[in-house]
């Protein structure tokens, strides 16, 4: 195949979200079909325009089907096309987007569909997550992500000085943001700080309202090469930079609180690729992967938006991370308001795209030109970061 290297510019021309809720009227493939079809419609493209497909979903034990992408192939334009599943745990939605990005940037394909989703309510998400734990060691008592969050939260409180009240602020902010997002799963009109404070402790010190719901849903993105984007004649989001970083779950010296190496590196690489020097000034919207309330403080610090835990707290307490603040974080309500795992990270990317294309509706951040999406997975060891912009990169 004789080819010329493409300019490398890749745009997101269409997005979709199905859910997020307890979906009892669509089978897993039907949900994937809806997301794929809606994204095509949003892009104004027809099925025949799609050259390749990347599919994402969480662990097989969530839906109880091995290689679920094969079951869903007919629902995701698989037949006759290159079709493969990315599976990296919590990051999977972003990792699937990243795969589609590289597929288009490679010059091999003009249009790529990335579709990602899970139906967590069909099995047992906690039993499924317990199978992430090493069977030789802690699987017997692993309490999945919630247990891990309890451990992480306490360590962070001890070493960073964040308190339950600080976490309460985020829980309330995200649940209020969720009311503005039609796709948010957890909608609490009457949310108050008191309600969060009084909610049941699930894994000390974590409370129920510090935690995300269990959701079903799918999301899809249509990625296109520059010339295809130009010919569509519609607002697209340009991909400015994508980066990922992995660390082992238990390497000697690992310190997730003071030096989360994979997160720091993923952010640094994404900023470098996008040419971002001062993220607080240059990025208008942040969609962090925040299944637990206390995490926003970590992200503010490690994405270079706050220079200390104290400054992170100040940003939150002064409302700067609200929709109309200077560092809007999780305008959609975040993962705290809907967690499908299989597309929770892609939802961050979709939201980041909606923001820079001005289609975020009630939770639109005014004048957003550049946005950041983030996903994490495993034992906080996999991180993927992407930056989108309204303007085509130079």
């Amino acid at each position, binding site marked *: 195949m004789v080819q010329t290297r493409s300019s490398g510019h890749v745009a997101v021309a269409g997005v979709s979200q199905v859910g997020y809720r307890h979906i*009892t*009227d669509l089978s897993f493939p039907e949900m994937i079909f809806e997301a794929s079809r809606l994204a095509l419609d949003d892009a104004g493209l027809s099925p025949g325009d799609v050259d390749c497909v990347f599919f994402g979903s969480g662990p097989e*034990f969530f839906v*109880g089907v091995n290689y679920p992408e094969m079951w869903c192939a007919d629902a995701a334009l698989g037949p006759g096309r290159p079709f493969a599943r990315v599976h990296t745990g919590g990051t999977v939605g972003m990792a699937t987007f990243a795969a589609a990005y590289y597929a288009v940037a490679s010059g091999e394909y003009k249009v790529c569909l990335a579709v990602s989703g899970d139906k967590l309510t069909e099995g*047992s998400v*906690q*039993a499924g997550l*317990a199978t992430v734990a090493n*069977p*030789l*060691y*802690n*699987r*017997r*008592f*692993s*309490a*999945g992500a*919630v*247990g891990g969050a*309890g*451990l*992480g*939260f*306490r*360590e962070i409180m*001890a070493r960073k000085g964040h308190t339950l009240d600080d976490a309460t602020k985020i829980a309330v902010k995200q649940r209020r943001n969720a009311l503005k997002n039609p796709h948010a799963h957890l909608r609490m009109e009457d949310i108050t700080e008191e309600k969060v404070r009084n909610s*049941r*402790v*699930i*894994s*000390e*010190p*974590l409370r129920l309202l510090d935690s995300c719901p269990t959701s079903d849903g799918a999301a899809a993105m249509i990625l296109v090469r520059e010339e295809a984007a130009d010919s569509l004649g519609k607002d697209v989001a340009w991909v400015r930079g994508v980066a990922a970083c992995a660390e*082992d779950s*238990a*390497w*000697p*010296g*690992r310190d997730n609180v003071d030096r989360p190496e994979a997160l720091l590196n993923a952010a640094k690489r994404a900023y470098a690729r996008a040419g971002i020097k001062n993220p607080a000034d240059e990025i208008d919207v942040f969609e962090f992967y925040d299944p637990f309330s206390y995490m926003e403080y970590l992200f503010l610090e490690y994405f270079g938006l706050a220079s200390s835990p104290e400054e992170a707290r100040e940003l939150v307490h002064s409302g700067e991370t609200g929709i109309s603040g200077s560092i809007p974080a999780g305008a959609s309500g975040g993962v705290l308001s809907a967690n499908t795992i299989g597309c929770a990270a892609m939802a961050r990317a979709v939201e980041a795209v909606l923001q820079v294309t001005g289609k975020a509706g009630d939770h639109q951040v005014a004048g957003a030109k550049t946005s950041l999406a983030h996903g994490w997975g495993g034992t906080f060891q996999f991180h993927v970061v992407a930056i989108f912009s309204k303007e085509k990169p130079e």
Partner: protein
Amino acid sequence: MKPVTSFEGRLSVPYHWHYGKVLSEFFEGLRNRKFLASKCPQCGRVSLPPTSFCGICYVPVSGDLMSISTVCRIDTFTVVRFKYPGQLLPPPYAVGVLKPVEADTRFHHLVRSENLDAINIGAAVKPVWREEREGEFFDIEYFEPVEK
């Protein structure tokens, strides 16, 4: 009759996970109430459980395992208070992230104490061994605070 909207089933999938040579020795060590660790020849970092390679220096780690103190420090802990299907222990139970004082790695295990106030970040804990040990992680029943 209501329409059929779902189909119930159950998976029960059997596995056998091999320890490999080094972990076989480690678990045999537990049977003998010992912590056997490995040390990377390049960076000198000590791993428990031991490994046969260093993922950072990316070199094989060979030679005999070294016996280290079984005393650990609690880096963080949680009390699990929710239930889920297939849970192997009934809640509530406390889980700690424990760092052996003579190793650079951490692991999770159960922590118990009659005096719950003794479970604290930074507290020293030691294993409580099962009477009948088989060469597996749960030869340690749980960890308890070291009496001062």
